[in-house]
């Protein structure tokens, strides 16, 4: 009963957050002194063409009206224009990009594989290296290993992703010429090329993100290693490897998973800068294009989708926490 209520409240909260994000995005972009219909006006643009374009795209109404149309479209679908030239966008309709002649969901779907490839590959890499380094640092506390792991993690936290990315391109792409620079090859086209082109972006993202995991794991591990049951395990004569691997590590994973969920959610929502640096055609690139072209429906769709991923990640993390640690449900 209590769990169901907890889950229900959490989900309802998530929907409210998404609604607020959509509303504020709409309001903010409506205030931008730009007229999306100018894009569709043609050259030479006349007042009359402009009015026609505006009317067809549904940009003639006040912003709250447009927002309600949008929200309604999610539930029932939408039709733009009338007669044989009308464009239908079926439910759930998250908008229609007039500039690309496609509904927004399709556009996001097309970019998703790129961002997923980028984020998931990087996540595996940083999880392994970050947690590994953290464990190592904790077990060998105070030694050179510990210092090295911490120094690397400070560097990782400090260096902005675009800076590391550019230096990586400079060093490995141009000077050493060992990895290809930029571009994306679909996994289905060639798995080898796919991975090969993503190696550099993966490593760069991993370097920046792993730092947090190293520190977190190390701190958590040090705490755990001081606990009584670990001492008991040690005194029973278990090998250090077993103590760390079987008993301590399990305890460390909960906070790590928490951070991981949130990180992954926000990364999937658009690795704007990484995609720009490496020229990857993912969701972040789509978003920046949408901003530049003032493609309002697309922009709204991308923002909502990013928020959706972040909120989902948060909910999942919360639910996991609730399940793993019943005390959380009560607070």
């Amino acid at each position, binding site marked *: 009963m209590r769990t169901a209520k907890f889950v229900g409240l959490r989900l309802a909260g998530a929907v409210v957050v998404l609604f607020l994000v959509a509303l504020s995005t709409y309001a903010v972009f409506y205030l*931008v002194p730009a007229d999306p219909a100018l894009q569709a006006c043609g050259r030479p643009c006349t007042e009359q063409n402009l009015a026609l374009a505006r009317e067809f795209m549904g940009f003639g109404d006040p912003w709250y009206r447009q927002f309600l149309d949008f929200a309604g479209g999610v539930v029932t679908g939408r039709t733009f224009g009338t007669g044989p030239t009308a464009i239908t966008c079926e439910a759930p309709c998250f908008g229609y990009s007039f500039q690309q002649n496609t509904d927004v969901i399709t556009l996001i779907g097309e970019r998703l594989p790129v961002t997923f490839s980028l984020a998931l590959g990087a996540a595996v890499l940083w999880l392994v290296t970050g947690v590994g380094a953290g464990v190592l640092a904790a077990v060998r506390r105070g030694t050179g290993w510990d210092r090295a792991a911490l120094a690397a993690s400070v560097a990782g936290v400090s260096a902005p992703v675009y800076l590391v990315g550019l230096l990586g391109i400079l060093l490995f792409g141009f000077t050493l010429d060992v990895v290809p620079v930029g571009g994306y090859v679909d996994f289905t086209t060639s798995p080898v090329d796919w991975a090969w082109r993503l190696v550099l972006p993966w490593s760069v993202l991993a370097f920046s993100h792993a730092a947090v995991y190293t520190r977190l794991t190390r701190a958590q591990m040090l705490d755990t290693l001081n606990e009584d049951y670990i001492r008991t395990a040690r005194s029973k004569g278990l090998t250090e490897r077993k103590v760390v691997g079987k008993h301590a590590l399990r305890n460390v994973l909960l906070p790590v998973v928490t951070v991981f969920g949130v990180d992954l959610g926000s990364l999937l929502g658009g690795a704007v800068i990484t995609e720009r640096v490496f020229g990857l055609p993912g969701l972040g690139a789509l978003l920046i294009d949408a901003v530049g072209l003032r493609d309002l429906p697309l922009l709204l769709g991308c923002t909502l989708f990013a928020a959706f991923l972040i909120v989902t990640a948060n909910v999942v993390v919360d639910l996991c926490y609730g399940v793993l640690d019943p005390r959380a449900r009560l607070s």
Partner: protein
Amino acid sequence: MTRRRLAVAVLTSALALSACGANDKPQTNADTAAARGGTLRILSDGQTVNYDPAKSSSLAITSLGLVHRRLTAWHNKPGEQAKVVPDLADTGKTTDGGKTWTFTLQEGLKFSDGTPITSEDVKWGVQRSFAPAFSGGLGYHKQLIEGGDTYRGPFEGAELKGIETPDPRTIKFTLVRPYGDWPWVVSTPAFAPVPKGKGAEADYAEHPVASGPYQLAEYQKGVKARLTRNPNWDQAKDQVRAALPDEIVWQLGQDASVISQRLVADAGDDKAAFGSSFVSAAQLAQLANNTSAKERVVTSKSGALAYLALNTEKAPLNNPKVREAFQYAVDKAAFQIASAGTPALAGDVATTLITEGIAGREKFDLYPAQPSGDPEKAKKLLAEAGFPTGLSGLDFVVSKSNNGPDKAQAIQAGLARAGIQTTIRTLDGDAYTEETSGAAAAKFDLTLASWQPDFPSANANIQPLFQSSEIGGGGYNLSRYRNAEVDALIGEAQATVDPAEAGKKWAALDKKILQDSPVVPLIYTRNSFLRGSKVANLFIADFPAYPNYLQVGLSK
């Protein structure tokens, strides 16, 4: 406008031609002779390639021309002035001084589906461009054809009054006023045929019925578009398309710097490829030491007029004397370097409004000075105008795209030498368009822009930028220049049917407008493109500054 022009450029543009300094060498030589056959690749940073004629603003010699023919076409050869030539039809006849125009289609023309192309199909295509769902393309005809001001397309049953089709090979246009450039206007995309009754769907661009040498066989947005031969196209009935490659494949959504790296590397299929976007100054610097790649850069001889627009409605720039000072204060040499690294790659210093390669152009310089300007003279003029201590706080808006901020800083630093202090305000593409051309009253003092005519007539150089009807509401008269005499002269020149006579009138207007200094002409912007080593006969004529897609081929 800069951004929009750029977007057009990116989508529609180009191929690379034979050698570096393409302009200095003969355009074809034995080892790069283009042969028939093979698959040509075009690498584009755009996500889409638009083959809907109603929504296209493509030039007559670039991508759209591969699939769609129009009533007329452009004669496009290096070293020769552009002129209008027959395509589907002849170049038109008028018997009443340019108010009604009659075109006769060639015999035996067919669509890719085998059906005959008739005057009804051309009419349908033009009518279709009036539908609200298909706006966005070049619309020079929309205000000119009789009845066009209230027409909303054919899909609700109405017909456009000003077009008659007495027989399947004849089409007659009745205009609201005499218009000498009408044969040029019918070379714009909306005058491509669309089979009568078709094209109601929003995605017509993805399966258009072709009249040109190629048809769209496969289209994946953001990935590729594959053009194959149109079996019903007849080489003998087309004098502007060589149609050499068997297939043309667009690779879409490629990052611009990646395109440049691939073409520099010149490996595998990329040997038969060229990039449709401009090669940037940084990319050009990168390949400066690469002899092979350098030879595969094709740079246009001239190009779009880059200019500094001065808001003539707002003090202190409403004073012509103050504006004249800007003619001398600007550092065009620094602008060249900021644009492309060297004057040779950036393009020549501009002193006229009409661009090179356009019939009737006269070269003159009303404000002679070094390319780097004459700040002392500018200071003197400002003092005479009542500003002995210079000007300050001028609002300088610039679009973020196309290195706008960098170029603006070069202008800013130049003006500062003459005591003119400006504040740069950078805007995203559409916000920029709204602010400079959308708003009825402009807040800015200065803005950077560039303009390339949509068809090769001085009319298309001057009218959109300086007629008072083009102020605000999406028009491109960014200087807000309002001169009743100039308006009247523009009307007169537009009504002149004889090209030589019209040319003279436009050249006189060019001078007359610049005497008022609504803009400072900066440079005729050269565009550079990269091609693979097997791409041949990729040339850029004097106008426009884009390669001719219709003539390119592959060497053996």
